[in-house]
């Protein structure tokens, strides 16, 4: 059952200031890159904005309008990137915008307003434990030949969870291979689950099938326990967000610390266990993935109360505790790199366009969003856009194929690889 009604006060608190559409005003640097919400920027009617969707939810709850195909279309044409939440919570304490958007998805599913592509994704998750329509038995192929311990047969200190995209994307899996190789060579006792690894389930939650995530979470918890690992590492930002935020928010505890590979690798570099030595003379810029950045902020549970106006501000999910510096520090540690920032970064980053089931269901909108980001990257004069999420990377690469631009898209690991003597 969706908890949409429980969030009615949040919806009613909206003053319609439209700040959810803009880069936080303190950070606005230009006319061109002032917008932060792809949905309203693309479709323009107020209802597409974060605040607008809250109004839609309230309207449905009050019986002023009905949930129907048109409204569902508005709800689903949203990457759930969390930009609106950042902008809103800069000012407001009692509005959990992101929660409303997630519950709105659940409500749509509850009332059978679903998207065919999402259904297909869910089917794939249920049957094959991945979001991509691939075969479960092929999941471990990405690590072939790497001699990485399999946690199904031995215990390890660190469980490396590749995630669906890195597991199956033939172009991107080299990055995952590079991660585990790098970490193994740095002395990390890590293992993988191979074909037994399953989807984190976060995507199911995001597309409105909240209950489905629980199954994947329980499966994940079991695997973690069985592995004996003391640390869960993942190179996938979506999984990271699922483990750090969605699971605990829904009372699911993996009982293990979780780090993104950039966090861990950054620590290795700072401790001297990794030393990028080869110069990579390249101008690069960094794209903050939503799910690693503002949405990757740890879930701030622990407050129980009725009136969010009484909730201490330390419980607000402002996104400020997301992972922003470690990927940047890694980039800065690579000799020869000329690192320039885009305007929309950190908590106020512009979404790549892939999240929330958008790339699957509305590829044109996803690519439109990505194109805007790529333009922003090009405007810095960068030769390469570096990021830390395979979903961002996939969409950026696909979009560049359409546009024919020669901007490179690299994972942070790919940049490290170049500096460690690889290609």
């Amino acid at each position, binding site marked *: 059952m969706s908890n949409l009604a429980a969030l009615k006060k949040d919806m*009613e*608190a*909206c*003053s*319609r*200031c*439209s*700040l959810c559409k*803009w880069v*936080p*005003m*303190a*950070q*606005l*640097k*230009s*006319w061109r890159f*002032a917008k932060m919400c792809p949905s309203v920027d693309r479709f*323009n*009617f*107020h*209802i597409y904005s974060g605040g*607008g969707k809250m*109004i*839609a939810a*309230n*309207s*449905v709850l009050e019986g*002023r*309008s*009905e949930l129907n195909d*048109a*409204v569902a279309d*508005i709800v689903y044409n949203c990457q759930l990137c969390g930009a609106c939440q*950042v902008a809103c919570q*800069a*000012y*407001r*304490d*009692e509005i959990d915008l992101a929660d409303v958007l997630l519950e709105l998805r659940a409500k749509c599913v509850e009332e059978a307003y679903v998207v065919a592509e999402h259904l297909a994704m869910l089917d794939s998750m249920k049957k094959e434990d991945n979001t991509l329509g691939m075969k479960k038995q092929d999941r471990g192929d990405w690590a072939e030949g790497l001699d990485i311990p399999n946690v199904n047969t031995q215990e390890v200190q660190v469980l490396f969870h590749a995630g669906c995209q890195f597991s199956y994307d033939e172009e991107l899996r080299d990055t995952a291979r590079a991660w585990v190789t790098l970490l193994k060579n740095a002395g990390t006792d890590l293992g993988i689950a191979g074909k037994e690894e399953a989807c984190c389930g976060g995507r199911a939650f995001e597309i409105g099938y909240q209950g489905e995530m629980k199954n994947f979470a329980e499966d994940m918890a079991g695997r973690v326990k069985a592995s004996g690992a003391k640390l869960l590492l993942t190179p996938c930002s979506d999984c990271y967000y699922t483990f750090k935020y969605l699971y605990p928010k829904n009372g699911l505890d993996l009982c293990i610390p979780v780090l993104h590979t950039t966090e861990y690798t950054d620590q290795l570099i700072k401790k001297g266990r990794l030393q990028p030595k080869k110069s990579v003379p390249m101008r690069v810029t960094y794209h903050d993935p939503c799910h690693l950045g503002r949405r990757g902020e740890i879930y701030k549970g622990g407050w129980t109360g009725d009136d969010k*106006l*009484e909730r*201490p*501000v330390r419980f607000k999910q*402002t996104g*400020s505790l997301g992972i922003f510096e470690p990927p940047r520090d890694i980039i800065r540690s690579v000799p020869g790199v000329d690192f320039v920032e885009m305007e929309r970064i950190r*908590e*106020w980053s512009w979404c790549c366009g892939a999240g929330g089931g958008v790339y699957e269901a509305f590829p044109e909108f996803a690519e439109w969003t990505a194109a805007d980001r790529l333009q922003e990257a090009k405007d810095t004069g960068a030769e390469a856009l570096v990021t830390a999420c395979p979903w961002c990377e996939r969409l950026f690469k696909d979009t560049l194929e359409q546009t024919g631009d020669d901007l490179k898209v690299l994972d942070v690991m790919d940049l490290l690889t170049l500096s460690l003597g690889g290609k």
Partner: protein
Amino acid sequence: MKQLSSEVYKELEGVLGPENVSQEPAVLDGYSWQPIFNITSEKWRPRPAAVVLPQTTEEVSEIVKLCNKHKVKFKPHSTGWAAWGSPSEEGELQIDLRRMNRIVELDEKNKFAVVEPYVCCGQLQAEAIKKGLTCHIIGAGPNTSALASATSGWGYGGTGTSTGYSGRNVLGVEWVLPNGDVLKLGSPGSDAGWFSGEGPGPGLRGIMRGFSGAHGSMGVFTKCAVKLFPYYGPKEPKVEGVLLDARAEVPKTEKLFYLMAPSYEKFADVCYKIGNAEVANWVCRGTMAAAIGLLVPRAAKTIYTSPAIRALLKSFQHQGNVLLSSESEREVAYQEKVLRKIVRETGCIVVDTSKLPNYGFFWWVFAVRSIPTALTFREGGDFLTSYGSPVEYDNAILQARDATEYKQKFIDEGVFFDDTSDIGWGGIYEGTANWGHCEMAAMFKRSDGRADDRSRYLEESAKSTEENALGLGLSNLPPGAWKIYGPKLYNYHLWQASLKKAFDPNSVGDEEFYVPSIDEIEEPQEA
């Protein structure tokens, strides 16, 4: 729910394309949700029959002509923040100007910009700063439309002493009149660029707005040239953080002071002198208690319960901010010397905040980008404003006193949150002119059911401004206020109503925040 006829709907689609027209109820509710300046117990306003998203002046003109043809009332808005942006009745057409969002021109030398409705002040300032310029940003914040406040709203802003008042910063204007004709005010009307808004001959800006604008009741403004002002800060400001965590690097030539006076009168005195001395870029009343309420509202609730702390805060009641700013260190040094001299001579004190940690926060968030206003919602989710007429600053300070005493009664009755009944803000405008304003904000929770009491506050405070000659301000201009004030002020409402009839013969411009056509006003027309 009132709908448009399918004929009219199809015609709108024909002009704009189906993707830019909607009559979906949930979409429409995105426009009828309007809590601000909606002094009722409801946040919903009447639902429009349809919403349209034009992109060009020609499209706007066609839509308005269609409205005339089919006798459909319309209401346009830019960012649409506040009740005056939405229709007053069901069945109207909402015109959302979001797709008209270009900065058409930014003339660095001549210090003006031509903007479309959906350019927010933050965007305009961000571009202007690169060229050593800034724009006036109203107190409501940089998320507001520069065009809307210049053509249709009010225009108070904290930096008024150096950036004026929106309604007086207007140069050329492009205006789709309520009958669909396009009128260009000033130089653009003669194909002479955008730098001038008056003439040829009489200044038609006089029918566009006065102290306040028509709030969307007299057609649609599609372009506006606004003055820009010198900005002496860094052209590429280094700012970290989102808002409350913001930190900025501040050059030595930007110096922000807190100014504290021992009395209302002395506060006025010191501001007059600072204005006359031509040393400051920002002179604005704003108190410690207000800052606490904005920045830490939960703590404020506790803080205000302490009588000792209240007394302490009240002793800083006559407080404001002064920003000195220049390209030249020599100039700022002189400005500071004069400021300190004036302050000494008037028995006030100043604190040089540039020595304080986190100085950059106040400089950037308050002084430059005028961000904080939306924080007023933190306390209870709603706020209103009152008093605040444009007057000589002595009279503005009288309003501050009147408002402080008056609001306290309503705080005691539980109608507003306790904020020590502090005067919100207001300073001096236009350099040496020393006219200014002081407005009183009040925070509340709408669900408390005290909407009638809040209306009473506005009515009674408006009456007080009338009885004590405190000007025609923010309390005096809610819908229908013209019925009370028009007959007392030379029947301004009848002149406006005649203009309404002349320019909107079919009465299709929603008149709620203006006046109806003269034909609809039943009263003698003698002065």
